[in-house]
């Protein structure tokens, strides 16, 4: 059986690729793995707590949608890494950044 982390990934992928919000039953059907709906509900609840998934409470059964697209989350991550947000001192030690663009250009010329 897949770990919770892997399940979260597959559920998120499903929601990102889906054009409209999905109910837990629909998620369960579309996942390849043979899972109980309760397990899917647990995974969805975890993702909601992490702020990745929005639950639509107006309908019955509740439907779930991704808060932001995959691309938007990637940009959010990169902004943290590239230091364009004030809260960047998560000290994600960076390989780049300590070399300025002009130095890198000079380096490229030296190395040929």
């Amino acid at each position: 059986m897949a770990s919770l982390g892997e399940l979260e990934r597959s559920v998120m992928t499903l929601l990102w690729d889906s054009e409209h919000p999905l109910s837990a039953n629909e998620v369960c059907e579309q996942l390849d793995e043979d899972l109980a709906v309760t397990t899917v509900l647990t995974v969805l609840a975890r993702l909601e707590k992490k702020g990745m998934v929005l639950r639509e409470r107006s309908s019955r059964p509740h439907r779930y949608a991704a808060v932001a697209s995959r691309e938007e989350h990637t940009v959010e991550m990169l902004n943290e890494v590239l230091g364009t947000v004030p809260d960047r001192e998560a000290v994600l030690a960076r390989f780049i950044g300590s070399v300025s663009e002009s130095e890198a250009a000079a380096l490229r010329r030296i190395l040929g």
Partner: protein
Amino acid sequence: MEFLALFLAALAVLLAIPVPKILHTASFRGRSPWAAMVLWQAIALAGGLSMVGAPIVYGLSPFGDSLPHALSSAVQLTLSEDYETLGQLEVHPWHIFALCLGLFLGGHLLLTLARTYFRVLGARRRHRQLVDLLSTPLPNTVDDADTQVIEHETPLAYCLPGRTNASSVTVLSRGLLNTLSQPELGAVVAHEQTHLRQRHHLLTMAFEAWYRALPWLPTNRYGRDAVLELTEMLADDGALTRYSPETLLRSLALSSAQTPPHDDGPASAPQLDNDVPGTSNTLITGARLQRLLAPKEPLGKLAVLGVVAGSAALLAVPTGLLLLS
């Protein structure tokens, strides 16, 4: 006690202003980054200790001849509300002011450190969640360390420290994988894993907090920047145990490009061609690149021993004076 307070104040000023200014450009840091790292950590600790210690020692000076004695008698007299004895001690308002200043400064430093620690921890946890959901593991990695790939064209590599080495992760972008050759990529991963293995995020944390706590102290920036640079040098050294300086330099040159190197606009191209060959070396001022381009002899054993002994003395002097004198 007054003399001790004066000495600590002088030490605090010395360690806060001229020493970082001189040290952050000292050339020996490129020859033995870890010795320089030990020295910086000692300076930060000794500087903080004397900065907080000086006003406290002065404030408590009417209460006794040594800090432990003065502290216990001050607490006892206050608790027993022995105003008669207190009145005979000639406690000047300045003493009370200094004591408050010292306690405030110490509390401020500790609180900022704690706040920075928890903020950074939270930011890392959030970031880690995104990495877990968005990235795919890099196939056939060199060793069993966790290396993940995110789908983005910016050439990028970084590491995200976890509680243990096993829960730390190195993240590479698709753009980097497309730009670098296999050995260059290996050098990048080795660099990041040295950051994680040597827990560099812990070495920089105090300096980050220190900088945040006293942003008006201009020399604080020197310490933070110097320590960040040293962690990069140490990580480079880790990569150099398995890869050549050329490979590392090449990967640095390529991954630093915010735009792909072949995308030089027509406007910038002629300027580049006009450069006299050989002058480009002067453009590289960063000590980190200098030591990769033209490696210098590592610092001698005796010199390293001197730096480490100096660091130990730096720490021992204020601590010893506070506790024993």
